[in-house]
């Protein structure tokens, strides 16, 4: 589960680097609020009871 943490530009830069993207702080600074909103939604998704639902990767192969 995602822990609540302050999303600094430095943290974004390190997270992006882990994903293989060498984006500058100037490039990442504008998306800080959008990342915060996304992570908040993902926290709620973490907490959701999804039961035994198997992930849908493609719909109804017929």
């Amino acid at each position, binding site marked *: 589960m995602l822990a609540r943490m302050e999303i600094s530009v430095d943290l974004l830069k390190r997270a992006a680097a882990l994903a293989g*993207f060498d984006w500058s702080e100037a490039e990442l600074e504008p998306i800080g609020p959008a990342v915060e909103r996304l992570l908040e939604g993902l926290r709620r*998704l973490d907490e*959701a009871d999804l039961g035994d639902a198997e992930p849908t990767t493609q719909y*109804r192969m017929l």
Partner: protein
Amino acid sequence: MADLSRMIATKQVSPVEVVRAHLDRIAALDGTLRAFITVCADAALESARAAEADLMAGRAVGPLHGVPWAPKDLYSTKGVRTTGGSKILAESVPAADATVVARLAKAGAILLGKLNMHEFAYGPEGLNAHYGDARNPWSADAHRVAGGSSSGSGVAVAAGLAPGSLGSDTGGSIRIPASLCGITGLKPTYGRASRAGVLPLAWSMDHVGPMARSARDCALMLGAIAGYDPADRTTSVLPVPDYGAALTGDVKGLRVGLLRAHFTDVATPEVKAAIAAAAKQLEAAGAVVDEVNLTQLAHVATGSAAIVGSEALAYHAAWMRTRPQDYQPDVRERLRLGAFVTGVHYVRSQQARALLAREVDEVMARRDVLLAPATPLVAPVLGERETTLGDGPSDVRAALLRCTRPFNFSGHPACATPCGFTQGGLPIGMQIVGRPFDEATVLRVVDAYQRITDWHTRRPAAA
């Protein structure tokens, strides 16, 4: 398209005259409307002359013989640049047609050109910094957005620059511009039409489908493009029905579920009234309407963002490493978000998706179709970022996606059609959602509705 096809087949009008008339309208109006990225005037006229010669010689013709059309500029077209609305692919010229483009050509349709779109299909407003923002033809005073991402398709069909188009729909990109521009747009079931040769936004959420003036036109186009394609392993082997034959005009006894919470209840007052009126009109035509709510919608927005963000960044990773400056700013920022989604979140989003698909299936087990707004608001003014819906303030982008995205998540077919106009003269759109691979019933309901209303026949004065 159906009318043009019939008139051409019966030699009431020549394909050359039809193509020339559309090219004239493009020349006269597209400087303002910005629907086209590329116009293939010479090739279209050459094809029209060949179509006319075939017709006069009595050679076999397809169901769209001599009828012009234009796809969103993410469909590969042999020898014609396919930009994806981007600077990055500005000079990209495919060596082959996308499967569905080839199928329309085989049916006799004539390519007029390639249509504007939100860059790489990643935005519901239909904005484009490289080729100019398509302009909604229903608004002469203010520049209102056309809706996206298939903005050029919405504008071209509404303004009479092309009688039909193919759009693509990952979160609503066919139905949103159809709603905002007052035309008919069908997102078929995932797997009904091939995505081979179509630039992806998110492979597991992308749907390709027709945009035209009526359900009958969409039926004609879908019949030509649908069906199994070995080049797209996600296409279904189910046989393609005769969609035109399904348009009986009869909805007696058909069970329609009116989607309330999240959909109709949050729409602006004029949209809500139009949806209520449409439900009553269908009821008067013999349909049985009840109200229904979906409960598995809480994670649609986040789940879609996680899935689309991850898949889109995977596709764009190389360019986002080497030339991020060549993307328009909103698309670049949206793509960057994908880097912050983990594999666990991607899979949990797909689980949430399975739950919604299951719930929609259960709801549809007792109903033939569902009815909801296509968009809960009408075309916003360019640059407008905030709006107010029935449940409070909303980001415009989220509001545009709100009613369409659930059915990309679930994969069910859905068709947008105009169902009224605001006092200010802007189109209002509703959508009819169907069972998987039952586009025939969806089109039957939309066609029946279009037989008892005239919203889909109205044309913008500006065009």
